[in-house]
């Protein structure tokens, strides 16, 4: 819908794969940080017009 592709990730991680989970989370947070804060799908300040 126009949200930056880097913001969404899917992975299969078994409950036994703790190191993989850590790796994936690291990678994802880095990727999202690179994209920067989400400016799109958030409501702007609520103000009187």
């Amino acid at each position, binding site marked *: *819908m126009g949200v930056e592709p880097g913001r969404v990730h*899917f*992975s299969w991680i078994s409950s036994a794969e703790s190191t993989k989970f850590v790796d994936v989370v690291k990678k994802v947070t880095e990727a999202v940080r690179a994209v920067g804060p989400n400016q799109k799908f958030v409501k702007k300040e609520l103000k009187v017009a």
Partner: protein
Amino acid sequence: MIAYTDKIRDIARRLLKDCRVETVIGFRNGSMPMMNEPCFIKNVDDVDHLIWDGNCGINLANYLTNRTDKIAVVAKGCDSRNIVTHIIENKIKREQLVIIGVPCKGMLDKRRIKAMAPGEVTRVVEDGESVRVCGAGFEKTYPRKDMLQANCAVCIHRNPVIYDELVADPVPEQQNVDRYEDVRAIEAMSAEEKWTYFENLLAPCIRCYACRNACPLCYCPTCFVDESTPQWVGKSQNPVDVRTFHFLRAYHCAGRCTDCGSCERACPMGINMRVFTKKLEKEAFEQWGWEAGLSLDQRPPLDTYRPDDPQDFMK
């Protein structure tokens, strides 16, 4: 079209007279050009109200949800596919229904015809392969095939997929149709372009929910936008809320939508929200070879698991 109408009336009369059904659901003449009104007939004497022409775009499967009586329903190709979906999703039982199948030649795009006319349209006459559009001081004739609703122009299931009676011989299905030209154009956009495109697309939305309510798939007792505990979506005209509604609604139709065009047709603001459902329809087709509502014997892809389900999106 007159032949269709006569045949529908004949069948309805017979079904009511023989007490095969209690109610016939079809269309009657509207008070506006290019508008027919869904109606129910319970009495043999009223059967002649039923009509058929190119202005029967509302999907009648929408009127079957959770009914308990025996019903005959007039169904064009897409309606019949939504009836199949309704049966699969337990919204109606097959045994309750007598489906009066109508081979469909596409519905007229009332918005387009109005926009092309030089003045207010007061009368539209379908005449075989052409359409005559009349108004104060003008009369224009167009080829019918150029005046179809966008979804009908790319429809490849014009004939009912399920029926008990057929009002005419099947029509030839359209061949070599490029169904997803519009979706591909959006897919090719950058994230930024998509964002702007959807923003402009949805800007006129007034959240009247005509699209949702005209959709036979949207039968939830309480729609997610109406939930209060928790409240998922704000109720104002904030664009984030408007967008959330349209996108989430489309997701709820994934693998179920037949592209009947009711949502777009119903919208008072003329928004083409079909681009959302069509994208998901395309995905369902490309990922699982699935087209909704073609068979009573197949479960939809989103409620079945197969070990070989595609998962290219997983990293």
